């Protein structure tokens, strides 16, 4: 007797339910970590690109060109293979012979951070350019030092203007985590693949993975939409 669909997806001894949920958790964790690492890179990239000096602008341009123009999966491979080579060399030089590698979760988060950071660079940059110069001047005219201007005026408004673009980038990041299956991270797609292989039910398990991606995307999208509407309130009449 082969188990039916419900047994396969359930939480019983023959069910993949628990493992799939756990993998969904890994997907969400990788997406969140990658997105916020990307915010760090994005803010840095935007600062570089907005610089009045040529050299930082060129570095910023180089960064966004590479990481937006090269397929994400190549970047994942670069960090996976290149990262372990680099770590092994450093360890061997430090007197620890043998072969070393970084956890795939860390590599995956860095890869997603670098890619989404390149897109977030553009989001923050164009949001910053939309700021009203007069309002910043008004702060300066009140004697606000630079850090206060940044924290009280520039940051909140930049975030507000960048939010719609950041929402789109978040959706891309969520889907990009599926690429980490190729380096062995047991996220949703890889777990579904394992289940599909051992039960010979690929349609069912990849279908479930697709549905879970849709649900996660929809729910986080609704939350971000709510935040967007909340932050947009001051600008509505």
């Amino acid at each position, binding site marked *: 007797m082969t188990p039916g669909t419900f047994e396969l997806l359930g939480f019983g001894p023959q069910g993949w339910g628990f493992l799939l949920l756990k993998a969904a958790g890994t997907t969400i964790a990788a997406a969140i970590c990658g997105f916020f690492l990307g915010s760090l890179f994005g803010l840095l990239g935007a600062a570089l690109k907005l610089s009045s000096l040529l050299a930082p602008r060129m570095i910023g341009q180089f960064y966004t060109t590479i990481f937006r123009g090269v397929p994400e999966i*190549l970047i994942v491979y*670069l960090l996976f293979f290149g990262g372990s*080579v680099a770590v092994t060399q450093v360890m061997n030089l430090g007197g620890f012979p043998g072969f070393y590698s970084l956890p795939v979760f860390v590599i995956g988060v860095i890869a997603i951070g670098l890619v989404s950071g390149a897109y977030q660079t553009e989001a923050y940059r164009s949001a910053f350019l939309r700021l009203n110069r007069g309002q910043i001047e008004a702060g300066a005219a009140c004697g606000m030092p630079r850090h206060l201007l940044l924290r009280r005026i520039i940051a909140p408004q930049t975030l507000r203007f960048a939010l719609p673009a950041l929402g789109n980038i978040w959706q891309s990041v969520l889907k990009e985590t*599926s690429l980490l299956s*190729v380096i062995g991270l047991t996220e949703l797609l890889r777990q579904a693949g394992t289940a599909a292989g051992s039960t010979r039910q*690929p349609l069912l398990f990849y279908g479930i993975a697709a549905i879970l991606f849709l649900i996660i995307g929809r729910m986080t999208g609704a939350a971000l939409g709510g935040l967007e509407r909340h932050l947009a309130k001051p600008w509505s009449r």
Partner: protein
Amino acid sequence: MDWPFLIDVARQLLSGVPLTLQLAGSGLLAGGVLAVLVASAAASGIAPLRWIALAHVEVFRGTPLLVQIFLIYYGLGQIPELRDSFLWPFLREPYWCAILALALNTSAYTAEIIRGALQAVPEGEVEAARAAGMSGVLLRRRITWPIALRHGIALYGSEVILMVKATSLASVITVAEVTNISYRLISSTYRALEVFVVAGAIYLALTFLVSLAVALVERRLNAHHAHRRT
């Protein structure tokens, strides 16, 4: 710098470029036709058609392309009717599965671009055409579509670039395009950086050519915005 190695890598990777271009080209062609159908269905008065179109867009934009590729490559074989049909010789080939997945994926994004572009057509210009006695196909062919095309072309340009990048996922189901060859080189030589630099340069060159082409098309389409040189 190990030039002989780099040149060897370049030679091998360049042999994958035709396949990369085929995947992108066929995917875009089939996806474009499908996108027009989906966009028409989404705008149609028949509710079930509209629902199908909306579901299509939602599913293919809301799930990772890699999941779609696996569903098609591994999943379709599970359907006995398909296995017995004339389509099976195609659908068991990674190459055709990749093209099908790319086409379905881009059709969802492109349908949205079409919808947005049609929405961006100014009401006033359509009314002006109606006032001049235009209607039906004539109105669409002479006024609505040309204006929408000018609105949508830039976004479609980025979609083409995304598609060129997306062909790299076909590597996962053994299609020997540029990324697949890169992966095999990296995992056999462990010289990730060198291979990455060459592969990255190839993709950047391809996307650069695409954006150049799009810019040219845009310039032609938007000639009415250009300043007349005397």
